[in-house]
């Protein structure tokens, strides 16, 4: 065993240690559990910071099953930052009395999924990727069903389990076809060969994309999204829409750009279709939602459609813009969910109309939500605009102006429903708006981080520049 390998695996090893810690803590007596939330946050913050330590990153371990490089480390770090903000925001929910007894197991499952996501990103062959995907999915179904005394939460868990089983089956089918065509599942070996298999290759690729498209909630693989988002506990919904989606996006990106370079014609065309379908359907459904979680479900579907715009450009520009957009989307979505979970924890409200007159009592929170929604809608000068603009440029540089036109139209439609929420807070009259809330330290910190992300990322060109150099 070469000890250097421990450094390459630092994310995975630290996270595994954290998982063991949670397991032990969960078995210990209840007094220790009281402080478990805070301890976990501190430990995870340590892990996040450790992930940024610059070390040699190029490596291929375990006979090529595990690969590491600067880009993968960056992607894992992005997931870590999102997860850290998520942990800060879910602290309030976990500290509620009815949830406190299951804190340990919550973290145990959560970190297991994160480990799975690391492995998806760092996979060097499809076996590892599939393993990571399952590790990232199965504990999530438990998390979705975490409010087990609520019928809808249980329903969410079952629905996710069943439909993800189908999607895994389709994906595995695609992978086995790949193996039949190439005689190998190693990325490095596959990428060196040209496009093979003819129609069978196209079929295999589509099946594979469908599997990850399911996690990304691309139309037509999205139908689980609304029900699961609505049924799951709010923090889990947040995790779905940001971290889980991010991992799926990054994995898809790495595989398509790095492994299936020979199939660019196929997958950029497929991305075109998926982008149009997803943006359109997501928007049309989002228009009519009254429940905030369902609303955010369709909003996140639409955003996934925008992400697919990057894929129509098979050059490095496409990757740059995808990563940049995901980074901004994470902060914007976390900010929205942060405010929503603050409201939900205090008052148990989750309808849009519950926000009526919210500005009068909570101007600060309303402004943050406004900022985040504008960022999702892509209004300058908040970062979301830059993310979208770059995606549009990526598509436009391929000459796909019609696609850009559809995308910009969809951005305009989405503005309409984001404004509905803004209108509820700032404009709709309400004699008894939700009373003013006092924030806990964790919530405050999380929101500050989100707002910084939303405002700063757009204007710090070094961030985009860094992504550019890492993608190479």
């Amino acid at each position, binding site marked *: 065993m070469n000890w250097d390998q421990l450094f390459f695996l630092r994310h995975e090893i630290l996270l595994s240690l954290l998982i063991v810690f949670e397991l032990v803590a969960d078995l210990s007596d209840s007094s220790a559990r009281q402080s478990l939330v805070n301890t976990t946050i501190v430990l995870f913050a340590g892990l996040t910071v450790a992930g940024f330590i610059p070390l040699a990153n190029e490596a291929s371990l375990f006979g090529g099953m595990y690969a590491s490089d600067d880009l993968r480390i960056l992607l894992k770090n992005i997931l870590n930052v999102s997860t850290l903000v998520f942990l800060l925001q879910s602290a309030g929910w976990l500290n509620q009395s009815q949830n406190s007894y299951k804190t340990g197991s919550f973290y145990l499952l959560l970190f297991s999924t994160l480990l799975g996501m690391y492995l998806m990103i760092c996979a060097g062959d499809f076996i590892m990727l599939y393993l990571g995907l399952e590790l990232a999915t199965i504990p999530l179904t438990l998390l979705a069903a975490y409010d087990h005394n609520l019928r809808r939460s249980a329903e969410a868990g*079952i*629905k996710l389990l*069943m*439909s993800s089983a*189908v*999607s895994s089956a*389709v994906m595995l089918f695609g992978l086995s076809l790949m193996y039949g065509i190439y005689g190998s599942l190693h990325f490095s070996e596959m990428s060196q060969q040209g496009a093979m298999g003819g*129609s069978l290759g*196209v079929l295999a690729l*589509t*099946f594979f994309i*469908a599997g990850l498209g*399911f996690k990304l909630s691309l*139309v*037509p*693989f999205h*139908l689980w999204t*609304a*029900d699961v988002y609505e049924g799951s506990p709010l923090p889990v919904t947040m995790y779905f829409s940001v971290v889980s989606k991010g991992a799926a996006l990054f994995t898809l990106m790495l595989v398509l750009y790095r492994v299936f370079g020979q199939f660019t*014609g*196929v997958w950029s*065309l*497929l991305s075109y279709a*998926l982008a149009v379908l997803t943006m359109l*359907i997501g928007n*049309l*459904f989002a*228009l*009519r939602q009254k429940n905030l979680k369902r609303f955010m479900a369709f909003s996140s579907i639409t955003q996934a459609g925008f992400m697919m715009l990057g894929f129509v450009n098979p050059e490095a*520009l496409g990757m740059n813009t995808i990563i940049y957009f995901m980074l901004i989307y994470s902060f914007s979505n976390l900010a929205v969910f942060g405010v929503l979970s603050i409201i939900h924890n205090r008052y148990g409200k989750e309808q849009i109309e519950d926000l009526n007159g919210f500005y009068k009592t909570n*101007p600060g929170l309303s402004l943050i939500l406004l900022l985040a929604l*504008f960022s999702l809608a892509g*209004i*300058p*000068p908040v970062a979301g*605009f830059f993310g979208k*603009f770059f995606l*549009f*440029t990526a598509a*436009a*540089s391929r000459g796909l*102006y019609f696609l*850009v*036109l559809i995308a*910009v*139209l969809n*951005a*305009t*439609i989405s*503005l*309409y429903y984001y*404004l509905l929420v803004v*209108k509820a807070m*700032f*404009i709709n*009259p309400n004699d008894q708006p939700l009373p003013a809330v006092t924030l806990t330290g964790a919530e405050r910190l999380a929101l500050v981080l989100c707002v910084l992300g939303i405002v700063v990322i757009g*204007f710090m*060109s070094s961030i*985009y*520049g860094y992504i550019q150099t890492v993608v190479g």
Partner: protein
Amino acid sequence: MDYAYTLWILTLPVAMFLTIGLSGDRLKSNAAGILGTAGLAVIAALSWFTAFSYFGSGLPESGFQPVIAAQTTWLAFTETLVIHLGILLDPLSVMMLVVITTVSLMVHIYSLGYMHGERGYNRYYAFLSLFTFSMLGLVVATNIFQMYIFWELVGVSSYLLIGFYYEKPSAVAAAKKAFIVTRFADLGFLIGILLLSFNTGTFDFAALNDMSGSAIAQPVTTVFMGLSVSTWAMLLIFMGGAGKSAMFPLHIWLPDAMEGPTPVSALIHAATMVVAGVYLVARLFPVYHFAAPDSLEVIAWVGSFTSLFAAVIACTQLDIKRVLAFSTLSQIGYMMVALGVSGYGDEGVGYMASLFHLFTHAFFKALLFLGAGSVIHAVHSNLMTDMGGLRKYMPLTHLTFLIACLTIAGVPPLSGFFSKDEILVAAFEHNKVIFAVQWFVAGLTAFYMFRLYFNIFWNSDPHYHHTPHESPPTMTGPLLFLAAASVLAGFVPFHDFVTTDGKPLETEFHTLVAVPSVLIGLAGIALAWWMYARKNSRPESVAQTLHGLYSAAFRKFYIDELYLFITHQLIFRFISRPVAWFDRHIVDGTMNLIGNTTVSVSVAIKKMQSGELQWYIWYFTSGVLVLTLILLYLN
């Protein structure tokens, strides 16, 4: 010359917005107003100083050259496509700085009185600062990308200002309409930017407007649907401008936007945001002229049609702010016409005239809006049927309003005469049909403005609940200042400063154009006087004594009645009303239809999301198969 201090012009309004906005109720209302106003006074002083040092430093040999006062590289997107943030000073932007800050200062002062005691006074001043910042950022942008950012920010802040009276559902609807319609137009703008920048490899105005740059020297002549790609790009960019400047058919938001507080209308809908489209075309004028002359032709016709269309509608409106809104549309139409018919260099009269009119219009239209606000403040109604005889009660408002009306009607030697005359000259030399339309619109303008004037200040007294009284000095002060500006702005030697190439332009006085245009203006005024000054139950005192002879004679021969018949029965019923109806039901309706269709499609497909797992899986698998089949077919 070091212009680094101009950075303060941008940073101060942001600082004010943050201070006033974040302090909430901790800041006393009066303090917020005074702080905002004082801050803006500093900004205005800085802008004037900039203008004096820029223009006052003497004319260089090669004309006034653009100066980059400050610039930072924000993003290197590809090696050639670099985005900067910076401040560009050239005759155009310096002129805009002066206009925006001056009018904004007047609006700030005026609002101290007008908004006194309103709920959300602090919020109002915070939004005003935000708006001023966005607008200033827009005009000093060094590149089209920076301009777009501020362009959207202008949209956001005007959304907040129009929807200020959020208790009023109509105000809320209007704010949303304004935002969404202009956003819709902006999608053209954005695609235009992408097209332009990808074909030229730059966002910078300096490089785009460079005579040997690729935008002008090598326009993309690939034809797409009958027009070259360059023309498409410039037309799409103009679409964004048409949205903000409310050109037909994207004008529908402007009349509704009158729901906002009146000083806001004076700022946004007279002097600043609505002329952003004119500014945009002027900013890229060399590209338009050399690379896409077809699009200039389109701009001229769109402007001409809008100006006629809006002037006709203005004659039918009863809400005084709506009259002013349509009047604004019509006047911006003039500016667009002038740009559309303009040449370059020595033939750039239209360009100069357009911006000259922008300059004078800002003052007299702001004056009209503020005057209307003063009237509304006194009468508590927007309808001219609730007004009349106000000249006795509000002498200052009356005087300044009269000056503004005379100015817009083009009566010499007021400023409106000079600028409109230049536009007519430019149109006359380029296209006689457009000239004829604009000449006729000049008459209509005088008519509807004086219809407004006579109905407010003359005519009969309705029964006022409270005797109207003159507004406080914080409101009349700006009125007087703007009145002076309206009178004097025409004497600014504009053609020495703001021209297509920075060099002074020789202009001639065309008697053939000036005399008929003054005449038709006077005719319009006279017509308005006939119809509205005396149409009342009072004995024909004032009007009769002044024009007793005339009216007696005309009445005897029933010419008056004939005229009333022609105007009221024929013109109003068969032209103006149908046009107004067309506007409300067809143009507006089409936009609504687009919205409604989206919603109904959304309802129609809701069955897809049934909640039943077996269907989800069915969709999933069939989706995969259909996609595969399509891919196989396409490959």
